[in-house]
């Protein structure tokens, strides 16, 4: 047993464990002072690594004790879980997620309500009824106005592939499917999705890009065909809709209409190609079966939801509600409460959350208090990083491209942060 400090403070026995073989240290118990924190543990670990395996430069580690990241002195962390301090504490260490770097700011004419990234193209929907496409380097490529009311959400039809087209939904009761090649100047509207009785707030595309679902203020969830083929509709030819630019565009009617929610639907996401999760302001999360067109599962909460995101890596849903907390739900769990963790750090309502596509533990959130935060699910009390810079409420966030963290808000700007882990 090696002693760290010769002082009269109480000592704890710890053992270091890791999943990354490059950073292995011998499995010997150490005796450390009770109130040791992350920085001192880092120093200790770096010294050990220097002794055992020659490393060129010291690396920053994050420590996991009892499944949660260590952010307070060790003894406080253990006391929260009512763990006995007699047994040897197992500390797992992982390489710390590097801080994102600010990259760019894209200035628009009005509030940004929807945003999504595919490859190096950023698609934004704006409150001035236009949709814009920018490059991640900051160059404005395209601006198109086809809607007659504010654009609420945008989504690329093929994940990561901008040439597959995109869909935009708006408060003018319609959604439009567009066709676009990156080399073209203007995207072409293919069909108009007509069927909602009130404004549409959310859209989600299935993973095989064949169907899409929209939901809005009329509380109905409508499923449509997402094909770019114009012929794939049942409307007779004479019932075309006149587009804004004078060209007639053909309308498309929904394949199915799913009734169930009592208030507006705020977020839609497809999971596993036949289940749709929707979050609504009627305090519920509903999981629908897309094949049978029925309700599969339901999670009832205390507050209205403002946004939700499902992760294929961790198979859990994070939601943001009309209070300042972010909640993690596991709809499959049968024991205990369905809400697994509560993340608190924002000071006002959280408006948008999204999972990371590459890591099962990371997600980001944007809130009305002008902050965008990067979180790790293993640390519910403190976010990993605060990305500040917005001067107005943050309305949408996106992390579809693992390299870029983007957010847009009421200060008419889109902020892009670079994720150093992937460079």
């Amino acid at each position, binding site marked *: 047993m090696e002693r760290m400090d010769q002082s009269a403070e109480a000592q704890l026995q710890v053992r270091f464990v890791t999943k990354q073989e490059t950073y292995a240290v011998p499995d010997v118990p150490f005796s450390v002072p009770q109130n040791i924190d992350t920085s001192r543990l880092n120093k200790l670990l770096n010294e050990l690594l220097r002794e055992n395996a020659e490393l060129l430069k010291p690396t920053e580690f994050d420590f996991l004790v009892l499944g949660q990241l260590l952010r307070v002195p060790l003894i406080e962390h253990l006391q929260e879980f009512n763990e006995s301090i007699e047994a040897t504490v197992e500390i797992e260490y992982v390489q710390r997620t590097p801080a994102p770097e*600010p990259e760019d700011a894209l200035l628009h004419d009005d509030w940004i309500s929807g945003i999504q990234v595919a490859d190096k193209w950023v698609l934004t929907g704006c409150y001035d009824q236009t949709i814009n496409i920018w490059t991640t380097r900051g160059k404005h490529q395209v601006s198109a106005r086809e809607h007659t009311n504010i654009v609420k959400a945008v989504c690329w039809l093929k994940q990561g592939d901008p040439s597959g087209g995109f869909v935009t939904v708006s408060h003018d009761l319609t959604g439009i499917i567009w066709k676009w090649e990156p080399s073209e100047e203007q995207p072409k509207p293919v069909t108009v999705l007509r069927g909602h009785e009130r404004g549409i707030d959310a859209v989600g595309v299935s993973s095989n890009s064949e169907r899409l679902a929209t939901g809005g203020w009329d509380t109905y969830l409508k499923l449509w065909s997402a094909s770019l083929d114009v012929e794939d509709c049942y409307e007779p030819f004479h019932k075309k809709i006149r587009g804004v630019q004078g060209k007639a565009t053909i309308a498309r009617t929904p394949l199915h209409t799913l009734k169930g929610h009592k208030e507006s639907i705020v977020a839609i996401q497809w999971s596993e190609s036949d289940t749709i999760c929707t979050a609504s302001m009627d305090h519920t999360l509903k999981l629908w079966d897309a094949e049978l067109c029925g309700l599969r599962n339901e999670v009832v909460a205390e507050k209205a939801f403002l946004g939700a995101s499902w992760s294929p890596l961790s198979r859990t849903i994070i939601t943001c509600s009309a209070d300042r907390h972010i909640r993690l739900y596991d709809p499959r769990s049968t024991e205990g409460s369905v809400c697994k963790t509560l993340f608190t*750090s924002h000071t006002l309502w959280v408006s948008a959350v999204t999972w990371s596509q590459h890591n099962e533990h990371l997600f980001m959130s944007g809130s009305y208090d002008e902050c965008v935060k990067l*979180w790790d699910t293993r640390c519910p009390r*403190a976010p990993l*990083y*605060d990305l500040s810079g917005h001067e107005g409420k943050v309305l949408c966030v996106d992390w579809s491209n693992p390299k870029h963290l983007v957010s847009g808000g009421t*200060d008419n700007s889109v902020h892009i942060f670079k994720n150093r882990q992937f460079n």
Partner: protein
Amino acid sequence: MVAKKKKKYSVGEGSQFISRRAALNKLQLSLNDFRRLCILKGIYPREPRNRKRAQKGQPGIKTLYHKKDILFLMQEPIIWKLRDYKIFNRKVGRAKAVKDFQKMRRYLDNHPTLKLDHIVKERYPSFIDALRDLDDCLTLCFLFSTFPSLPHIPRDQFMLCKRLTMEFLHAIIEAKALRKVFISIKGYYYQAEIKGQTVTWIVPHNFSFAPQPKQEVDFKVMSTFVEFYIIMLGFVNFRLYHSLNLYYPPKLPTTDVSESDKSLVDENIYVAERIAALNIPLTKLSNQTEEEDVEIDQFPSDTSAEDIEKAKQEQAKIKTLKTLFKGLKFFLNREVPREPLVFIIRCFGGEVSWDKTLFVGSTFDESDETITHQIVDRPNLDKQYISRYYIQPQWVFDCVNARELLPVNKYFLGEVLPPHLSPFVDKERDSYQQYIPPEEQALYDPSLRETLNEADESDENVAEEEEKEENEAEEDETEDMENSNEDEMQSTSKLQKHKLSVKPGQVYKEEPWEKTRQERQEYKLREKMVKNKHRKLYKSMMQGRRERSKEVWLLKKKRRLHEEQKTKQKSKAKQ
């Protein structure tokens, strides 16, 4: 035919109330007579719900009575007596004016008297009803028994009050009904239990009567009350004595008294004095043995086992209370208040005596060897017997309240007495609605007793500790400033409009007041949801609570200031 028009105020509150002047007109009485009649019959003015309607639209604030009450008064036979008295006064006045003194004397001999027996029966149809109203009656009678003759008040009222109150005390002694006592500024508080009813009364201290400089108290009104109460008390005494198998009026057992004594003193006065001494047991109607203990029935279905247990424990306690001072012999010194002590000691089975020259009725002398306790109120005493305890009078009262014989050492001559705690404390009310002094809290919670003792000792260390705390607070602040690191990344020229930066996340600390604030908001919301018809009641309830807690706070503040003064004096004395 035109239908009869409905007149305003003919139904509802307007028809239920009648003003005082209208009542006087209806009854044809003068105001004084009306007042007297109302006091005797127990009729009071009422507060209507809507004054405008009750007063038939007239402005101002009038004294309003229920119309039904006045109609009830109209059937009262006393009214004729009151009118007869008025006529009698007129006749006497005329005779005096004409200087026809024989006639005047004849009239005065046959003056009309008021008989109130039927009123007592009417107001209190059963004995229990009379017991419920006995509090005020007793207090007023005890008060009047201490008065000298006042103008405009019949002289025999004082004598009757004295006699009746003494009889009542004898009844309590025989029944062993006394439960709680308390000495306060107002006087001696006694609480007895008769036939399941709690009767509480105050006996004023033995101060001489001071005539009031301003006419604040209307003795005539009080004397009307006393007039009714002495009749009532007479009935109550009669009933009590018969239920205890005693002769009423009380008779003393025949003792051999020398002829010379008898010839000097009138027999009535002789008996009255000895009864007033409260020291001699009265003769009984028949020699019946004492009631056997009544067993409490078991009703397993209705009441819970806990309640039955509690009742049994209460009964056992009261049984031991009745023989608290049994076998003890007390001797009262001259300076000690004789009446309350004699009453209490005899109530609980003890024997008591005093100096012969003080009052009649002393049974044994100071030099009696078998005296166990001598009650003295002086700082020191010259001649002391070894075989008896010399204690201060508060011991007797505290023993009764504690329901056991307390250790005598705290009550020796010259000792600082422990605080005299009031037994009239409702244990169910919490400490915000009722002031419970720290000494009493220490009785219930022995752990607090230690804090009481420690508080006295640690007064000196308080000043030093305060200084230490201030230094520590300053150090904490500086540490917090150093710990917060800020990692600011450099912003390029493009981003100068929007200062994008990345900071490591701060740990979220839960504020303790957030939860309480949330709860308070929810409570206020629930308050708003109270129904309209319950709203007034709820408001008055909460107001009552607030007032009581305010009083408690004031008392606590007084206590705190008093203690601070004491410590200041102590520290000054030390210096």
